[in-house]
């Protein structure tokens, strides 16, 4: 009655654009980051084309490198899902790193305490890892729900708390006193005793020589499916998204906003906790060490943002970042260009996604040709 004639049609068009434009900002952000990163490389006196070529070759050149890229991306997939899931309830989970550590600690604990065959131990360890992360995420969720404590700060503080707890468990003081979980009589960097079972390698050596790709990949993919299913197919996911999009309307609809938020942080933490578990059980030395995470939980923020906080997007973004991580080590070895290029690129990608106005502004000024869908979106706005 109050719609103009033909507006059904107009509505439908707008709706389709909203879907199609999903990839525009992430793709543009990556391209811009590569461009600006290239300038940095140039300024530092290296050849950007060499750098990127070596990076690409390192990441995808041959089956072994592809397998290694995937190995690097497994924990990123899980921590990325952790950030993305919390985002859906409106929370910015900076704390995947801490949740990852707690998952690693919990799962490592059962791994050397329980002398069980893998078929029993691995499920228990998965559960323990998920629980460890969930508890750590849940703390921030509960504090947000009941005390209004801002999750960005609490999760950030919980990160350092978890990292220090892990350090303490391995090494009670930096002078070398062994911690409660440390393996006795081991020289070099402290670690727990090795796990009594490990995640099996899933690619036969006929396919990849010395391949390390382990079943953690299946855990991550299963987690992604779980993420999607919970979010889009369950009433809990319905409530989480409602709370994230409009907490007031959710409350008017009778949804318990605080509890939903806490629960979403609990689940998010479980994802990251699984990331800790697969890091301990999937790769050598199959034990908790002080250096098992090069910052998976921090990279996770970039993964989730780049993946538009979707399950499939996070998996894809994690593979991209896994490729950067693995490719850059070879780039450094072969071309003598610092592997820290990865962090520069990650930082730039996050920056351009956050400041998507830059991408749009560049498009408006015609410096960059925006994908057609974005242009139409601009025109409509």
């Amino acid at each position, binding site marked *: *009655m*109050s*719609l103009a004639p033909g*507006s*059904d049609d107009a*509505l*439908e068009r*707008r*709706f389709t654009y*909203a879907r199609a434009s999903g990839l525009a900002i992430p793709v543009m952000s990556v391209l811009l980051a590569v461009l600006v990163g290239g300038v940095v490389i140039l300024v530092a006196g290296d050849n950007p084309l060499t750098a990127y070529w070596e990076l690409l070759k390192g990441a995808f050149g041959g089956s072994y490198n592809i397998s290694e890229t995937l190995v690097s991306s497994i924990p990123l997939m899980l921590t990325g899902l952790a950030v993305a899931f919390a985002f859906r309830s409106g929370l910015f989970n900076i704390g995947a790193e801490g949740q990852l550590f707690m998952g690693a600690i919990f799962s490592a604990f059962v791994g050397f305490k329980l002398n069980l065959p893998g078929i029993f131990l691995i499920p228990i360890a998965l559960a323990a890892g998920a629980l460890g992360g969930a508890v750590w995420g849940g703390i921030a969720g509960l504090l947000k729900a009941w005390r209004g404590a801002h999750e960005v700060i609490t999760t950030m503080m919980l990160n350092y708390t978890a990292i220090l707890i892990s350090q303490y468990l391995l090494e009670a003081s930096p002078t070398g006193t062994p911690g409660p979980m440390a393996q006795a009589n081991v020289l070099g960097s402290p670690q727990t005793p090795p796990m009594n079972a490990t995640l099996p390698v899933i690619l036969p050596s006929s396919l990849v020589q010395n391949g390390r790709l382990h079943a953690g990949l299946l855990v991550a993919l299963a987690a992604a499916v779980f993420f999607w299913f919970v979010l889009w*197919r*369950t*009433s*809990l*996911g*319905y*409530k989480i*998204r*409602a709370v994230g*999009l*409009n907490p*007031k*309307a*959710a*409350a*008017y*609809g*009778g*949804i*318990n906003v605080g509890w939903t938020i806490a629960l979403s942080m609990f689940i998010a933490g479980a994802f990251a906790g699984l990331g800790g578990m697969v890091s301990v059980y999937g790769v050598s030395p199959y034990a908790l060490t002080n250096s098992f995470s090069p910052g998976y939980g921090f990279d996770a923020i970039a993964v989730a943002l780049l993946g538009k906080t979707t399950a499939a997007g996070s998996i894809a973004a994690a593979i991209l970042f896994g490729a950067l991580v693995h490719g850059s080590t070879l780039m450094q070895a072969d071309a003598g260009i610092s592997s820290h290029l990865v962090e520069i690129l990650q930082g730039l990608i996050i920056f351009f996604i956050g400041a998507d106005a830059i991408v749009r502004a560049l498009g408006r000024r015609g410096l960059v040709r925006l994908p057609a869908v974005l242009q139409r979106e601009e025109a409509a*706005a």
Partner: protein
Amino acid sequence: MSLNGSGGWANGVPSIEARELVKRFGTFVANDHVSLQAYAGKVLAVVGENGAGKSTLMNMLSGLLQPDDGEIRLNGRPVRFKSPRDGIEAGIGMVHQHFMLIPPLTVAENVVLGHEPSKGFFDRPAAERKVAELSEAFGLKLDPRHRVQSLSVGLQQRVEILKILYWGSEILIFDEPTAVLTPQETRELFVVLRGLSQQGKTIIFITHKLKEVMEISDHITVLRAGKVVGQLETASTSAQEIASKMIGRDVLPEVHKEPPSFGELALVVRALSIQSDLETMAVRNIDLEIRAGEILGIAGVEGNGQSELVDTLIGLRPASSGTVELRGKSLLVGSSGLKTAPARIREAGVACVPEDRRERGLVLQYTVADNLILGMQDDALFSQAGVLNRGKIRAWAQTLVKQFDVRPRRSDVPVGTLSGGNQQKVVLAREFSENPDLLIAAQPTRGLDIGAAQFVHERLVEKRDTGTAILLVSAELDEIFALSDRIAVIYEGQIMGVFPASSVNEEEVGLLMTGGSTHAAEQSIDLSAPALTQGT
């Protein structure tokens, strides 16, 4: 009648003039070639309904917003304001509807902010002295050292007025200044306004309250749906003339209403008191009863406790004392902040059409179908063991979309892409479908065009006729009278009286809504008079 032909002061050059101003927000045209003139020493009233574009117009005149087209002239000279700074420089000051005050700062700090007496160190004594002098000169008593957050709303408004006077503004714009004031405060404000006008200031007064227009203004510009629909002189017009121009939709066609057939008592509220966010009492010791098949209309100026009452009834705000029963079942035993979970209250048979559908009624990014199950997502109908049954949800949504004539007739589009009227239909469809014993409808037709409003009214009456108890909260008296079987008037959190709709007229109710006395005449109603209070 037009001012241009009427001679007298209007022939002078306006101190401020808008010529054909246009302002768009996205595709929405908030101001469509709007023109007005205001004169020194005169009060111009700008009237119009909510959403008519009054605030947008004033924000352009004060420099907060920039027009997309058209021109502003000051004393005949065209000006362009890039920011409020330019407006202030040009002598324009605006008292905003939502006060532009910084609660943790003091009165003096708020007043001098942006025009402090000194650069470098903040000269607090000088600021306080100047503010004290100003408040003395204009009869606006205030202690410059008090923090604004500790002041009542009326006093906060004084700070706002002092601020623009401190700027030396000659053109003073008041955006709905009485909406938040008590009648006493309104009277005091009008005294101040007259004083300022006599000193030669130009006053632009925005309101939708016609009594105030008649009382305070010299001339009137009427806005409707972003356009000027009338320029009148107060002395030669009437409230009725303004009203018909303002509303435009003439009056809603009468809703056909069968005589009510009341059932048993549905809702019983006893001695209910509720605190506001500011920890003052928003609702004080009220009693209400609604029978099945009855519409009880709560009439009142916004901000007199209605929102808090609704929030408490649906479990979102604890009561400080009192009881609420639905069909004999206790929903709330009000002691020390007790509340029942909203989900439990919904289960008990309460549904609510909230006052701001975009903020509270809908998840705009959700599809129509998903919005239609909000609050019911865990019902056995829509999910089993926590897993949503998409097929059932879609089928259900299609039925409701058809039944409530939601356009476009599909359930898979985001509800935010629908027009306001169709959004409201989605809310109604959902809340009606719960078959509640009590339906709360808060400002159900706000911002809707006439057709959509009528649709909503008809559906509410239909719902009543199926035996639902309906609590209607509305600031629009014509809506209250069109729908209610009984009318309760709320003022400052208290029920001033409950009447059968047929036994009172709009004037009497309007009087009670403002605390029982008009600002102009000192007449007052004796509240204890048996004719006006309900015998319980």
